[in-house]
């Protein structure tokens, strides 16, 4: 069953043609990795899935993006973004306490009851494997955490809104190898219950966690296949070149 179906998607920012004729499906409960050099359109593609691109001025698009068979433009923005959460490249805690960061989403969706919030916060922090590290200082500032902890807090914060899909936008680009390993482990564990789309600059990361891998170049989808095939027998020369580090 497809979670997302993208048909003939084109995106422009002013005169820049950021994505060209993208067609692809994202399956339920898979990790789809997207690799490609800078400016290949992979982040634009990711931000399309919860309509964050629309915050940019001069954004235009054509084609269709469907979630569970429904066009995303027909869904309330707030509902869509709850369903499709995103983790940004840099850890971006809100200037609140750890607890309030995680409780932010649910509160904005109208949950006021203290006991329910407590329960959501604990569950989310546990799911993101950071509960043990922060349970004694839930009410101190999120900015006091290390970069890796902050990123896992951001994952917990996204989980707290009870999403179905989680988008990761180069989530480890600012992290050390140990934090990276923890985030990757978290992703693999989340796969059971969530559909994950991972944009990464790190080809090895795509190989480690992705079920399928897509290669983007200059706004085009060059190749999409199971991760095994992409990394052992890519059909396109350009994919092969990129994976071997010949360009990009």
């Amino acid at each position, binding site marked *: 069953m497809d979670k997302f179906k993208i048909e003939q998607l084109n995106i422009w920012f002013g005169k820049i043609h950021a994505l060209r004729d993208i067609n692809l499906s994202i399956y339920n409960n898979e990790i789809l990795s997207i690799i490609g050099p800078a400016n290949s359109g992979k982040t634009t593609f990711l931000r399309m899935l*919860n309509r*964050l691109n629309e*915050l940019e001025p001069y954004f235009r698009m054509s084609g269709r993006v469907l979630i569970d068979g429904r066009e995303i433009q027909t869904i309330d*923005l*707030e*509902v869509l*973004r*709850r369903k499709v*959460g*995103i983790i*940004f490249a*840099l850890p*971006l805690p*809100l*200037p*609140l306490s750890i607890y309030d960061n995680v409780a*932010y*989403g649910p509160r*904005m*969706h109208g949950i006021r009851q203290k006991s329910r919030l407590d329960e959501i916060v604990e569950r989310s922090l546990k799911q993101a494997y950071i509960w043990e590290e922060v349970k004694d200082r839930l009410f101190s*500032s*999120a*900015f006091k955490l290390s970069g890796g902890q902050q990123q896992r807090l951001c994952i917990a*914060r*996204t989980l707290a*809104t009870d999403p179905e899909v989680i988008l990761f936008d180069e989530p480890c680009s600012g992290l050390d190898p140990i934090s990276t390993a923890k985030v990757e482990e978290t992703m693999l564990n989340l796969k059971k219950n969530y559909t994950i789309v991972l944009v990464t600059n790190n080809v090895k990361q795509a190989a480690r966690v992705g079920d399928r891998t897509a290669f983007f170049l200059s706004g085009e989808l060059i190749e999409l296949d199971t991760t095994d095939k992409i990394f052992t027998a890519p059909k396109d020369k350009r994919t092969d070149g990129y994976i071997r580090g010949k360009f990009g």
Partner: protein
Amino acid sequence: MMNVRLKEKIAFFFLFLCTLFIIVPVGMIVVLIIKKGLPALTWQFLTDVPRQGMRAGGIFPAIVGTVYLVTGAVVCALPIGLAAAIYLSEYAKDTLLNRIIKLAIVNLAGVPSVVYGLFGLALFVVWCRFGASILSGSLTLGIMILPIIITASREALEAVPHSFREVSLSLGASKWQTIRHIVLPNAIPGIITGVILGIGRAAGETAPILFTVAAFYLPKLPQSIFDQAMALPYHLYVISTQVPNVDEKIRYGTALVLLSLVLCVNLIAIVIRYRFRKQKKW
């Protein structure tokens, strides 16, 4: 040819001298006013009404009047100014109308204060029939400080990192929720700064209250917002130029009270801002 290093030293010295010169007028004003005004500062001077044709007694009604006017001006200007600032920084697209609005705000800041006075007289005193009253004066002062509050608030709102907004929206919060829970709380120090600047300006101006509220001599306190009131800057003007044989220390005493009032407000606001800054977590 002069040594490069020597040239640099001369240049630095000259720049330093010019910078130092800034302190001179400020220091002289403060010293002069304190020296000449301090002897007048007695409990009676602060709490009594003017007596003997303002040649004796105190300035209590003028202090109260100024406090009322400044409070009224902030009450009028803050909600409107803040709302406008939120609209301009968060919602307004780059259209012709919005450019005209921004231009209007810049120009509003440049209007001479006496023109505000005349405008207040025409609009509030005459046309709205509020008469010369605290209400008219507060509204006039409010319009005068509006651009200060809008500009400071807008800058404060725009200084909140874009990424916070994006995170909040990505979690399914609406735009208004984002403004209400993320943007505004983090912009408060800057907004307070705008209010302080506005208060300083409103407390000190004479021209806008001249035709709209200020009483020449009114030895009782105003009872409602439709009453006239005395005010410190206008009182200072009156006893300095309109009434003969006023003791110098009364004049300087009045100036000292006005100056202290404004500095006090600034100090309070700086403390509030400092507290908020310390809380700031990014």
